[in-house]
């Protein structure tokens, strides 16, 4: 395994582990929900995922795949509101995208 890849995996893996386990060790409820730090922390996740979603769909929209894109996107939204499952919405979106691509 290349050293820089291993280093990246260890840094990111350690941070993911810390973010998942820290709230059980430290009482995060002591942070005021209206404080700037709480607002910054709660906004970072949605901001990051929005940025990632936008960047991942820009090549699809510019690459002449509008029909599969909209079919897949609407499927994800529909399944999410129906079943509230990230995995099911993701898999259905990919399946519908593939089918629309084939047609």
């Amino acid at each position, binding site marked *: 395994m290349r050293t820089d890849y291993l280093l990246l995996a260890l840094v990111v893996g350690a941070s*993911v582990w810390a973010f998942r*386990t820290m709230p059980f060790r430290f009482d995060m409820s002591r942070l005021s929900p209206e404080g*700037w730090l709480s607002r910054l922390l709660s906004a970072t996740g949605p*901001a990051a995922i929005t940025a990632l*979603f936008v960047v991942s769909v820009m090549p699809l929209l510019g690459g002449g795949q509008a029909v599969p894109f909209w079919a897949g996107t609407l499927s994800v939204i529909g399944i999410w509101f129906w079943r509230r499952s990230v995995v*099911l919405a993701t898999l259905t*979106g990919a399946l519908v995208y593939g089918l629309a691509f084939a047609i």
Partner: protein
Amino acid sequence: MNEQSARFSHGLVAALPVALGYFPIAFSFGVAASRAGFSVLEATGFSLIIYSGAAQFLAIALIAGGAPLLVSAFTLVAMGLRHLAYGPALMAAAGQTRIKRAWIWAFGLTDEVFGAALGEMARGRRFSEAFMFGLGLASYASWVIGTLIGALAGGGALAAFPAVEAGLGFMLPALFLALLLSILSRAQMPVIAVAAVVTILVTLAVSATSGILAGMLAGALAGAVRRRA
């Protein structure tokens, strides 16, 4: 079978839908990593060590795009911040604050494991750490094995099946969109709008990596400065 073993087994069973769903996503990560030049060990190592689908897919995109290591690490660490919300939500649903072994099992507290645990408790299951161990372990195993098989299949595995390849290519945007919907709230709408606009503008003007960083920072700052409505 003692009580702890029974709870652990219940966790393994409850993980079945998550594990079945994780497998194809992990397989597609293995294929994508292989296509980006990762060895089987590197692809599987990412799943073993990081165990966060969105972060792993982004990591290979950043590496393939030539992003500097520090920029990649910063971006990936920042997007993991959403996990901070899961512990308090789980403890509130469980009705307890004394949890002893979270430092082990909470490593497996992914978006979907968190959702599955909350769903089980909503259906009347009592919270136990043994149950969480079972739930997390089966999901983790599926993720790692799916990655290994995808990486062994290799980047060209789906070349003869363009529709399957296209569908797997949409897996990442679909995952991000589903994650976004799962954390969507009225209060975060300005954050999402600011992040989206800044990401588009900076991506078009500079690069995708800069767009992600700028969008993320702008959205987070928009959240920090917003006032109560």
